[in-house]
């Protein structure tokens, strides 16, 4: 298949003329292949991000099907990453997908992010989110955080590869606190999918240097009001992850 044909419509957007080539030059590490991760990864592979590492240790069950659109009834009982990989390769057989059927920790983080400059946190719990923030910060790897619940979602880009960014804007833990606790809440397919798409868009903007207005901000999506608000991030010198009193990693 001719790539000029494949990406023709995307390339008609001047800023995205070489998006597929830029995406293909990189490897992206994605945590979670559920309501956010599945569709986001699918959209990114579709746009030309052919080199992807995905981590998820869940298996598909019936309660996933209302929102995790890569999976079907016949997939129940299978691992999410195997099904996800299968769908991605059906979309583009050139896709080079490495799967990690395990929790991402200090032990496997290096391997998971080998050759990656960006991690997408599309997981589904606060413990993983705090841990990924610390790991990305400690290794100075850029992090996109996307999280969603019933009618609220958060999206932010933490440019940990840039020391000036850290000095000014800090990290996710500055905002959430090291003891952040969030109970499992309701979630719908349409909103999880919408936020997946925004996370994929933000990734495309990162790789095409169209990120300037998004640096140092967290975006709050309010589905009830149909609004997206932004707040400036701020570093706390007291943060145990990125602050002046941080614990030795």
């Amino acid at each position, binding site marked *: 298949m001719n790539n000029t044909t494949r990406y023709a419509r995307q390339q008609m957007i001047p800023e995205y003329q070489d998006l597929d080539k830029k995406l293909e030059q990189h490897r992206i590490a994605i945590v*979670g292949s*559920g*309501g*956010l*991760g599945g569709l986001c990864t699918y959209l990114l592979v579709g746009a030309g991000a052919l080199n992807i590492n995905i981590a998820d240790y869940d298996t598909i069950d019936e309660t996933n099907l209302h929102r995790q659109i890569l999976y079907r009834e016949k997939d129940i009982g299978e691992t999410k990453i195997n099904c996800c990989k299968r769908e991605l390769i059906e979309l583009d057989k050139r896709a080079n997908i490495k799967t990690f059927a395990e929790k991402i920790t200090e032990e496997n983080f290096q391997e998971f992010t080998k050759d990656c400059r960006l991690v997408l946190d*599309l*997981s*589904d*719990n*606060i413990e993983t*989110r705090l841990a990924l923030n610390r790991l990305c910060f400690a290794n100075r790897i850029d992090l996109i955080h*996307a*999280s*969603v*619940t019933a009618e*609220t*979602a*958060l999206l932010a880009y933490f440019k940990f590869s840039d020391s000036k960014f850290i000095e000014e804007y*800090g990290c996710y833990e*500055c*905002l*959430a*606190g090291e*003891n*952040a*606790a*969030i*109970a*499992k*809440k309701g*979630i719908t397919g349409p909103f*999880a999918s919408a936020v997946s798409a925004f996370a994929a868009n933000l990734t495309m903007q990162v790789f095409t240097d169209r990120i300037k207005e998004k640096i140092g901000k*967290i975006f*709050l999506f309010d589905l009830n009001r149909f609004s997206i*608000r*932004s*707040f*400036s*991030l*701020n*570093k*706390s010198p*007291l*943060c145990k992850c990125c*602050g002046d009193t941080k614990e030795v990693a």
Partner: protein
Amino acid sequence: MKINYNGTTIEVKDNLSLHSFVTELQLESRTIAAAVNEEIVPKKNWENFFLQEGMTVDIFNLVAGG
């Protein structure tokens, strides 16, 4: 003094820290984030951050799902 809290003008006492404000509202601080005048106030700074007349305070729930 008057402040704007989540879109509504309310009356609060003077010399109120963000931490005390959250406590008085009986909010569970572990589950929320706060911004003043559209700038996130890191959680560790809440105790030493004092609200002033006319400030806009936004408090929203953190979310973690996916």
